[in-house]
């Protein structure tokens, strides 16, 4: 019975060791780069390195590379919605007021100018 069972992909140890070494190297890189100020690029560089590290963990440690594709489809669909969530919120906070008139209220949050009386 056991011989009829399909056995899963067993990755060679070298893949795990190489992933581990690369993750450590990228950690050192991200800490080293953070000691310099690149202005607005700081967050772009830090997130770029983080995305590289996350991809390595997902592909090798979590085995998405060798796995059934349906698992990757599930994961990437979820990421798409996370992207929509973050993307639209960042666009809102970054560009609010560029097309419609706004005024600054408390806490520095911009709100649309209201013309309540003009509408009646």
């Amino acid at each position, binding site marked *: 019975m056991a011989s009829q069972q399909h056995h899963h992909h067993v990755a060679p140890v070298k893949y795990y060791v190489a992933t581990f070494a690369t993750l450590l190297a990228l950690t050192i890189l991200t800490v080293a780069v953070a000691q310099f100020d690149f202005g607005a690029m700081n967050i772009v560089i830090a997130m770029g390195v983080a995305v590289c590290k*996350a991809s390595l963990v997902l592909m090798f440690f979590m085995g998405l590379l060798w*796995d059934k594709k349906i698992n990757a489809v599930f994961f990437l669909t979820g990421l798409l919605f996370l992207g929509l969530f973050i993307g639209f919120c960042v666009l809102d906070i970054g560009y609010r007021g560029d097309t419609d008139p706004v005024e600054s209220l408390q806490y520095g949050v911009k709100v649309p100018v209201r013309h309540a009386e003009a509408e009646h």
Partner: protein
Amino acid sequence: MTTKVTQFVKHQVAHHFDNAEHEFDAAKLGMWAFLIQEILFFGGLFVAYFIFRAMYPAMFVEAHHHLSWQLGGLNTIFLITSSFTMAMAVRSAQVSQKNKLILFLVLTFLFAGGFMCVKYVEYMTKIHHGYLPAKWFFGTGTFDTEPLFFGLYFTMTGLHGLHVLIGMGLIAWLIIRSNRGEFHKDYYTPVEMVGLYWHLVDLIWIFLFPLLYLIG
């Protein structure tokens, strides 16, 4: 012939599955659905972070200097190492190496414990110096919005730390079951699933570390 043969417990496939493969695939897809749900609920906190960071960039830069990037970096190394040992534990189960499986699980547990110890030191320093959320804040800062940063810091790392603690409990459970010989090449579903959960905890920290400790 004095070859020592490890005794393994045979796994019974639940009756509603065709075979072991069917059972394993169903569990794994369910696990991925759970993991993406985890990412989406952490997503809310990341959105809060990005919004407040966009509103108060100077405050974030000042506040993040109160966090030690050295301790954060050490914790990053602890978590990455524990992720590696967890991946090796899953691999050991796949090739029925019981002793290695237990060894790698114990190592993973210890690195997770190391992470929590460093976290404890960090939290105590913050609490002692008053770098706390909202009305509990009594540290010194140029900006009156600084408690916001520490609100985000404690919520994000606290929720993450809770996941580490839960993970440690699950790993301890795996160690007990591995010791009974329950995991081998024909059945290692719980090891694989806890492994995926553990890598997710690492994954979230990979983003928390630069956002909170490095660039504020």
